[in-house]
């Protein structure tokens, strides 16, 4: 009996142990299976969500769209009560909560507070007080007194900065496993990396574009959402005369003419769906063309035929100079027609008279021939001026320097102008130094320079005045100055004086010339390696100073060694050589 009992006990014990061991093994196997299932679930979730999020980010590289895609797929990974995001964008804080269960408003409030605390702790920055909120999903039930029992936050880093927090909550205790939470971290991390990458590219492109716009000579600004000025370049600020550091669209409205309604023009451009162009607008004493181009968002539009308007880009093109140049050219054409036609008319008239009148005396014939010659010289001078100006512009203007006596050239010019000055009761004063060192220069061209300056002085000096020709020299340079007691040149016109077609305003029609004289003078002086400056005071007179360097040692050596006979043809730094042809100094009227 005892033996039977003993065997029974032993057998029972063995079976008992076996049952326990089997139970433990079964439990372990179950855990393994669950672990495997969880792993498969996690991998499936990652495989589904990561490409979907990447695709979404590529289409819309924005933190909100990234979160939206995540929330849409989250249910496949874990059950939850709310999925929320708190994002910081353009200094605006946005809280979005998606409720998966019937929770209360105080539950949402608790989630929001916890997320704000999280964002504050991780970003260490002051957050905007105003928070935009949006709640979606299951309708809230304020009678539900449940509060978030389980929750975790995931800070979102984009381009190295915290841009928000994603949060999951549950009304259940220990609702989320470490594996699930870690998996979600990894998913968000990968999406953030993709988003950062795309945003980096966009930032680079935006920087390039901004830099390009900033360097434009044209003014450009962008108006979005009807009235928000989102970008304006320095050129636009300058053209509109706006000095405020952060201007608004209102400042632009004020800067534009009173009768120009930019707001209406913007609306018209958007409605018509094409760029509009304002021909000429007078803004702050400048003439501008205004181009308004609508900007559409084709990506987020419901239909491609009806795209959503984002705003407009406005381009201000300053045409003041163009207009002024066009006016100058027009004036020049009129002036040239007159300047060329007048002597030709005189020549033709004289020739006609000589041919038709048989009673002309020899004296009268000689006088008519004299008139014809005088007018021919004037005509030739004007044509030469046009030719010289064209050569200067084309970089083909050349001078022929020889080592010569400047004093004799200047003395000839004084002698030439003295009779004409005497007729006008103007005194020509000779202050040319007695002993001038030899100078390497083009005598014809320097004579042309002095002619031009003295002709101008004669034009603008009233009766009883004087014109003084002076020289001063040191070891390196010689300065020729032509000074008069004429009407002077206003300060604001002095800088434009050496430009083509430039005329001193207020000089009267009797003083009009080709406007090429000083342009050519400047070119000749520069070709000598010299400079021309002026000092002038209205009603008191003007002095032009021409400073020319003496020949350098190297140049003198080169002259005597390689080109002992004849002139040295020198090329001005900016001008290639061309054959010289002028036979006499020309009179260039300014």
């Amino acid at each position, binding site marked *: 009996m005892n033996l039977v009992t003993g065997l029974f006990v032993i057998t029972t014990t063995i079976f008992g142990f076996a049952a326990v061991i089997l139970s433990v093994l079964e439990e372990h196997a179950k855990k393994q299976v669950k672990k495997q299932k969880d792993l498969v679930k996690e991998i499936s979730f990652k495989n589904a969500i990561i490409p979907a999020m990447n695709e979404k980010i590529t289409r819309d590289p924005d933190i909100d769209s990234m979160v939206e895609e995540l929330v849409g797929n989250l249910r496949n990974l874990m059950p939850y009560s709310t999925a929320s995001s708190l994002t910081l964008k353009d200094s605006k804080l946005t809280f979005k909560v998606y409720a998966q269960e019937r929770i209360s408003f105080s539950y949402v409030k608790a989630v929001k507070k*916890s997320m704000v*605390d*999280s964002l504050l702790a*991780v970003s260490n920055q002051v957050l905007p007080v105003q928070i935009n909120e949006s709640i979606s999903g299951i309708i809230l039930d304020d009678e539900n007194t449940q509060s978030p029992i389980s929750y*975790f*936050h995931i*800070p979102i*880093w984009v381009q190295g900065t915290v841009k928000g927090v994603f949060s999951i909550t549950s009304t259940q205790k220990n609702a989320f496993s*470490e594996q699930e*939470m870690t998996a979600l971290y990894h998913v968000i991390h990968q999406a953030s990396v993709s988003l950062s990458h795309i945003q980096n590219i966009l930032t680079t492109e935006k920087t390039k574009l901004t830099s390009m716009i900033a360097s434009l000579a044209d003014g450009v600004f962008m108006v979005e959402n009807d009235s928000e000025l989102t970008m304006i370049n320095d050129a636009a600020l300058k053209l509109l005369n706006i000095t405020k550091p952060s201007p608004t669209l209102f400042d632009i409205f004020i800067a534009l003419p009173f009768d120009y309604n930019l707001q209406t023009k913007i609306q018209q451009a958007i409605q018509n769906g094409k760029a509009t162009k304002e021909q000429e607008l007078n803004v702050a004493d400048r003439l501008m063309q205004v181009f308004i181009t609508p900007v559409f968002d084709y990506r987020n539009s419901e239909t491609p035929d009806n795209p959503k308007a984002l705003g407009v880009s406005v381009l201000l093109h300053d045409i003041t100079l163009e207009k002024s140049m066009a006016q100058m050219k027009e004036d020049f054409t009129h002036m040239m027609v007159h300047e060329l036609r007048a002597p030709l008319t005189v020549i033709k008239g004289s020739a006609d008279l000589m041919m038709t009148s048989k009673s002309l005396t020899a004296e009268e014939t000689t006088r008519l021939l004299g008139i014809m010659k005088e007018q021919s010289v004037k005509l030739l001078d004007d044509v030469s001026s046009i030719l010289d100006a064209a050569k200067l512009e084309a970089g083909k203007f050349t001078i022929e320097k020889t080592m010569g006596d400047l004093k004799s050239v200047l003395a000839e010019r004084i002698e030439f102008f003295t009779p004409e000055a005497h007729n006008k009761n103007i005194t020509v004063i000779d202050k040319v130094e007695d002993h001038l060192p030899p100078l390497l220069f083009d005598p014809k061209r320097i004579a042309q320079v002095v002619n031009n300056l003295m002709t101008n002085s004669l034009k603008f000096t009233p009766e009883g005045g004087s014109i003084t020709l002076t020289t001063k020299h040191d070891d390196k340079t010689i300065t020729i100055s032509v000074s008069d007691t004429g009407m002077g040149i206003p300060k604001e016109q002095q800088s434009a004086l050496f430009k083509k077609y430039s005329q001193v305003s207020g000089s009267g029609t009797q003083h009009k010339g080709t406007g090429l004289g000083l342009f050519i003078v400047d070119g000749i002086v520069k070709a000598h390696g010299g400079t021309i400056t002026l000092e002038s005071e209205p009603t008191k007179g003007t002095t032009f100073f021409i400073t020319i360097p003496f020949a350098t040692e190297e140049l003198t050596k080169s002259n005597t060694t390689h080109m002992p006979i004849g002139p040295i043809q020198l090329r001005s730094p900016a001008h290639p050589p061309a054959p010289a042809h002028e036979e006499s100094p020309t009179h260039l009227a300014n």
Partner: protein
Amino acid sequence: MQPTTPDYKKILTEILHKQILILGGQLTLMKARKVEGLTIDDTGTVTNATGDLPTVTTHFLNEFRDLSKNLVQATMQPLLELEKKEEPVVVPTDQKLKIYNSDDVTNRHLV
């Protein structure tokens, strides 16, 4: 001066309290309690720290690095300074001289 065990406990506790605020208590404690040598109560206070504490610190940081490197970099700076660093390899001065002494080379050529 080398930090003491109370120093480590204090810094780890401060970091944990901050992480609870940032990540939430459940995840923070799960991660921190996986680190051998640390005993942490439910409030996130480190009650005991044993073993080689610089190594423990590295393990602690690695748990959170697994979540986010940015998070560690941005919020655990005091702890990063205590992390065990690799000893730099120092070349003995006399060996350097042997290699770079130009006289030796010249003499060798001359011989």
